[in-house]
């Protein structure tokens, strides 16, 4: 696989972004030889648990460290902060066998993060270029879009559950993408837990919003029991209904052609 692909997963809170991200990662691990970069951009930082990995620190924490040291005047006056932060962010990267995980965490603390965030964007761009596949689990809602953290995204998957709010958020995301001119190459709607009798509603919603529908992840007892017992979703049986749906989605969004 020669070209690089960046996939971003967004949608209203609680619609299943983390589930979709985890299952897609499982698909990538099973079907490619690539080491994927997974970015948990949700301040709640649930992804490490769902993937069954332990994380020392988040990017938010090291940014806070930097802010604190700036305030105390602890940093060497001649050391460019961008170089320091680059090293610190790299140190938060959690390596596992088949994927690397970076958690953004919360940008805690008061004061101005303009500069730190600006530098971070560049650092993340550089990091992403090292991976053939990057998978971004975005924070809930639409805030990340106006901050343009999704720039240079090839595929954006917008997840919705069977709720009016899920649709509304998806619609708002569509509008914002157009408003702020983010360079998203292709956007899809993904349904989560739509029962068969509501699939036509999902299709219609996708049409109305103007998204192509990538598929629906059906209700799956395995997902529920894995989440309940805290077992990593990556270990879910291959014949689970949700994972079978992921294979279809991967095909639909062209991931299959890339590997």
């Amino acid at each position: 696989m020669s070209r690089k692909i960046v996939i971003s997963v967004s949608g209203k809170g609680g619609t299943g972004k983390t589930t979709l991200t985890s299952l897609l990662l499982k698909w990538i691990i099973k079907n490619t030889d690539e080491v994927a970069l997974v970015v948990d951009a949700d301040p709640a930082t649930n992804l490490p648990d769902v993937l069954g990995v332990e994380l020392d620190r988040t990017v938010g924490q090291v940014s806070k460290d930097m802010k604190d040291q700036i305030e105390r005047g602890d940093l060497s006056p001649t050391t460019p902060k961008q170089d320091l932060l680059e090293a610190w962010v790299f140190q938060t990267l959690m390596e596992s066998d088949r994927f690397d995980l970076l958690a953004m965490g919360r940008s805690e603390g008061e004061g101005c993060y303009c500069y730190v965030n600006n530098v971070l964007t560049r650092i993340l761009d550089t990091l992403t270029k090292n991976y053939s596949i990057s998978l971004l689990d975005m924070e809930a809602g639409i805030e990340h879009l106006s901050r343009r953290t999704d720039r240079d995204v090839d595929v954006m998957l917008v997840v919705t559950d069977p709720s009016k709010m899920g649709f509304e958020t998806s619609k708002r995301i569509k509008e914002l993408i157009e408003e702020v001119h983010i360079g998203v190459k292709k956007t899809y709607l993904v349904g989560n837990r739509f029962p068969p009798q509501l699939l036509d509603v999902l299709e219609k919603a996708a049409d109305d919003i103007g998204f192509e529908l990538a598929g629906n992840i059906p209700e799956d007892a395995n997902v529920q029991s894995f989440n309940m017992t805290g077992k990593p979703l990556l270990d879910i049986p291959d014949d689970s209904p949700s994972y079978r749906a992921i294979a279809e989605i991967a095909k639909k969004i062209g991931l299959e052609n890339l590997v």
Partner: protein
Amino acid sequence: MSMFEDIPVDVGIIYEGERIRGRDMQFELGGPREEYKFELVQAKDLDEIEDGKIEIIGKDISELEAGKNTPFGMIIYVAGEEMEKDLEGVVERRLHEYVNFIEGFMHLNQRYDVQMRLSKKSFEKGFNSFKLFAEVLMRLYRSEMSFIEKIQITFITEPKLVEEWFGKAMEIYEERDARARGMSDDEVDVFYGCSLCQSFAPTHLCVITPQRYANCGAISWFDGRASAKVDPKGPVFEIPTGDLIDSVTGEYAGVNQVIKEKSLGEIERVQLYTAFGYPHTSCGCFEGCLFYIPEMDGYGVVHRNFKGETVNGLNFVTISDLTAGGRQVDGFHGLSIEYMRSPKFMQADGGWDRVVWIPVDIKERIKSFMPPEIVDKIATDEDVTDLDGLRAFLQEQDHPIVSRWTAAPKEEPGEIAVPTLELPASAFPIQGVPAGMGFRIILKNAKIRAEKMIIKADKG
């Protein structure tokens, strides 16, 4: 690059940004798991070094245990007629780029925090000795920094020696930082501008100089230089200082020109070290805010984390709202705490002699940088809570501001909150007021109606 034909791996800018995963590395030099590591450039006299000499003390690349990290030190000696001690840091910073140019070699951080990794792949291709590493670095230095006439490199992996040298290196870094802290705005011909905050303060531009950090406190002149180098057209860019118009107020022709351009004509002049006349504009996310206290004819500074009320009964938000948004407001401006450590701090207005109140939190952070004789004379939130208390405190401590009160007798404090302001004459050019003379405008229960009002800048 033909220059590196005899090197078993490729060398070039395309490898910058390459990250080596722990699982793919042959070894790690330094890094967070090692206590002792450093990279150091030392300027020497021409006769002190042997050009091209490479020394390896301890294990070479091929002998280092695979998959492990190791203590590491690297000393680069350079000499040349034009080589100066002050250039050591500049030469050292190039290592970050140069090492990253090598295929399969990652360089992160710097100085005593350096972290380098070599990939298994590059090792297997034959990059198996520090000699090759040194060759690449020497060639890059010679081709890009013409003032380097001789270069010699020592690598140390012998743990005891790394530790020994680490101590020496730390002292050298500290000396270098002390020199950098003493660097003055007058020594450079380039400042940096930062327009990151223009998204919410469209007429604001931070001017970053060696002695005036960006208002957010995050961007030093050195950061500006590093950012502008990576992304010259980005939000942090060079400002050639141009002619120095006034060294006391800190006004530069080059700065004025850029400010005018970047604020779309809204702001025409900026004087860096004053709160009156043409103060630096304020973004919205400054670390602290300076505010004029008319009753004292002095200044207070309040920072963002200060939760209480200032001595004149305001809070940070109220004070910062008076100036935020890219405005130029007499007597108020956002600032970084670091700027308070600068000898240029409020230079045009009398510097520390005009500061009468700061939160104890700020005082603790900066007191070693304040003129020692003023430290105890400036009140904090722990000393006083209101203006009467402040006045008594200042008198008791014999704060220099007190002599200003007696020099220019003022009304008893009360509802009149406008004492004599020593405004630069250029701030309010009113005909008939001789240049340099102070004047006073008092408006009481005023209602002003005007068909037209013209305020002109003093072209003189």
